[in-house]
């Protein structure tokens, strides 16, 4: 029984903090380019840091800004990398201004 109260209190604190983060997230939500999230979801998500960026979010950001390349990612499988590369070609082809 003695172990139950601390566990419940800790769970309560965790729940309250999580809820607070949720509220802050709601109020201070920043609209981001959906392509950034797609790039991040196509990376393995292991956050190994072998690419030299802080985690997969860092590499996704770098790829999005054109500072990084998908082949910097070490643990990604070959077919997933080519899928990401084709996605990047499609997604960023629209952005290039058409010549008059």
């Amino acid at each position: 029984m003695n172990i139950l109260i601390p566990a419940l209190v800790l769970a309560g604190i965790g729940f309250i903090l999580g809820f607070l983060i949720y509220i802050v997230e709601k109020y201070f939500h920043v609209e981001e380019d959906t392509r950034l999230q797609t790039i991040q979801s196509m990376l393995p998500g292991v956050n190994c840091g072998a690419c030299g960026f802080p985690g997969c979010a860092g590499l996704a950001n770098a790829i999005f800004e054109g500072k990084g390349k998908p082949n910097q990612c070490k643990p990604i499988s070959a077919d997933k990398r080519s899928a990401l590369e084709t996605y990047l070609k499609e997604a960023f082809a629209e952005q290039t201004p058409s010549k008059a």
Partner: protein
Amino acid sequence: MTELIALAFGAFIVQNVILTQFLGICPFLGVSTKRSSALGMGMAVVFVILISSIVTRSLYHFVLVPFEMEYMRTIVFILVIAALVQMVELFLKKVSPSLYKALGIYLPLITTNCAVLGTAIININNNYDFVQMLVYSFFLPLGFLFVIYIFSFLREKINYAPVPKAFQGTPIALITAAILAMIFARFGGIL
């Protein structure tokens, strides 16, 4: 009042968080290569330590003590610090994107800065009352900011010095930090 001034001065210089207590060495070595990022990191640490100390102290006295679970303080404090850093990050992203960009990865890294947890635990161990806690948790990270800032000046100068190849990078930075620590150890005689 004199007691508070002594406490502030002690936290700032005499018991300096980096050079005397050896807390927060990771950002001290990692972020001190450029002056601007050192300043940004220092300010973020001041902010997070001040807020997290207020929250952890209140939580300790109003939740942990009544439930007789003081032994859980480490895990509770880590939880609070991680959540706080997350909230600060979300807040900064919306309110000041330029500062958010400047701090970059160093903002989430504050979660693992042991100076933050260290301050929270020192506050509890020394039984500081609320005002003492406020003074201590403001001047301690200010000492962090001060030291990391002067260290970034030194490292920028070291970049131009003819350092032997084996000592380039972190080794020479550690030697510089050791000499700085010896200088700061002399402040111990003041109080």
